[in-house]
């Protein structure tokens, strides 16, 4: 039997070894304490500038449809955006289009608002969960009291102090869509014409969104946990994005190295078998 060349063995490496390499790489990178300053990409900068331009007391809708499945991507975004909104003393309301998303965003918002002295019902509110996004967005564009009726704590919307002077989505300045699924289409299609959209997708959906950034259908975008890291640097805070970024970038580096290695091994093996 012919001895297998090192290249051949390299190409037929057990996949479990590869899995282990990836896992070790991620654990090590999560533990590492190095920080590299990022370059801020234009969509993140525009996101930041749009919120910076808000006046205290302006209304913002946060559409939060993520839950633990994509926590690593969406929680850093959600936290960074909320902190920025509260820093600007802006009023905001949250709505979810999936039940687990409601629970997780309400819990998180309650914890975050405490630090900024925001009072639920007075400075912010959670509208709970709406099963159908078309009904919710179209309804809220006309009349929020009618469409939502009561907040997540079952307090009637009309009695919330935060809703003073606010009748419908037309009185909002912005909607921030934090999402792992296709909620953006519905915000784009059914919102009132003047409501601006900021977008926090998981990275999978980011590439496709560039056409909307170009057309102005969305004004800014934070791409996954990596984007949250860039946003955290703009805000000058340390959050989950900062914790995850090393693991993200070193896993990218690892994959690139292994793609190159795989191709190199194939090339060498072809050369040796040809000669």
């Amino acid at each position, binding site marked *: 039997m012919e001895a297998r060349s090192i290249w051949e063995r390299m190409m037929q490496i057990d996949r479990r070894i590869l899995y282990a390499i990836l896992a070790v790489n991620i654990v090590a990178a999560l533990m590492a304490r190095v920080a590299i300053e990022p370059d801020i990409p234009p969509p993140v900068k525009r996101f930041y500038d749009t919120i910076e331009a808000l006046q205290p007391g302006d209304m913002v809708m946060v559409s939060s449809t993520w839950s633990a499945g994509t926590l690593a991507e969406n929680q850093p975004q959600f936290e960074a955006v909320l902190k920025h909104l509260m820093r600007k003393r802006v009023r905001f309301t949250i709505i979810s289009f999936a039940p687990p998303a409601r629970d997780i965003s309400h819990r998180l918002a309650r914890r975050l608002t405490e630090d900024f002295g925001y009072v639920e019902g007075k400075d912010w509110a959670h509208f709970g969960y709406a*099963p159908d996004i078309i009904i919710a967005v*179209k309804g809220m564009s006309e009349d929020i009291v009618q469409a939502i009726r009561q907040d997540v704590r079952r307090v009637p919307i009309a009695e919330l102090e935060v809703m003073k002077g606010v009748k419908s989505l037309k009185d909002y300045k912005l909607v921030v869509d934090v999402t792992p699924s296709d909620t953006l289409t519905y915000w784009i299609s059914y919102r009132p014409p003047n409501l601006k959209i900021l977008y926090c997708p998981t990275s999978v959906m980011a590439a496709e969104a*560039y056409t909307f950034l*170009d057309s102005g259908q969305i004004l800014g975008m934070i791409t996954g946990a990596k984007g949250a890291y860039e946003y955290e640097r703009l805000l000058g805070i340390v959050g989950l994005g900062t914790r995850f970024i090393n693991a993200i970038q070193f896993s990218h580096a690892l*994959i*690139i190295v*292994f793609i190159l290695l*795989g*191709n190199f091994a194939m090339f060498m093996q072809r050369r040796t078998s040809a000669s």
Partner: protein
Amino acid sequence: MLFDTTQLVVALLWIAGAFALAIALIPLLGTLPPRGRFALISFVTFIAGLFFAAEFFLPVGEDNKNILTDPFQKMQGSLQVITALSLGLGTYGLVRMHLRNAIQRRPQWGYSLVLLVAFVVMAFFSVWNTMAEKGLFGLKRTPLLENAFTLLFDYTLIQLDATMFSLIAFYIFSAAYRAFRIRSIEASILMFTAMLVMIGIVPLGKLISDSIGLPAVQTAEMRTNPFMLENILYNLRLPQIASWIQETLNAPVQRAIEFGVGIGALAMAIRLWLSLERGIN
């Protein structure tokens, strides 16, 4: 209170009547010949589509509404109700299959049993939880419900869900090493772009560019004078390349895809609306 009870009874009577009507119609429908069946299905399909289409196309008044705008909400709600019922259909199929496995003691029937037990327990707490939220039938959120729901949902279902999703990372890594070969021009363009984007969008890309001494900022002079050497070097920074790929090269590609998909979806909507699609209806 009395008024409320009367209203409840009336509502229940209406619903009972509607069910009676639906059941009474079945034998009648059964007498339809195949051609009539197809005509009926096509007609219902067309009418359902016509409502939503007309709401969009009809002229609107001062308040930005036409006569169909208000019923729109209720129609859309009905659509949701029917979709919800179809969920029951899928659940029924799943439960039926595994019940059969378990009862007939087919191979691996133990796992079917696990599935059924998990289903029944979770369904019980989930429905209870939903009803308690609405205060239906006087149900409340008790500590038992809270604890059971936290355990089953937050610490089991959600964990399993997140882990299932994250498995793909391992597969991607393994596939990247074993399957992504320079086999054609296309695959090479794709891989090369992907690698540039992957390194350019993370801070490592900036670090690499900085360490080989490329200028870190674009001055006003460089903007107005794009052929300056500094400006060319600046644009060769990995973050700048990645940004440019995504915003200038990728955006028009995505838009062309969008147009193709949008036109295709519109054409398909028209075919389905008018029941022209063969093999489906």
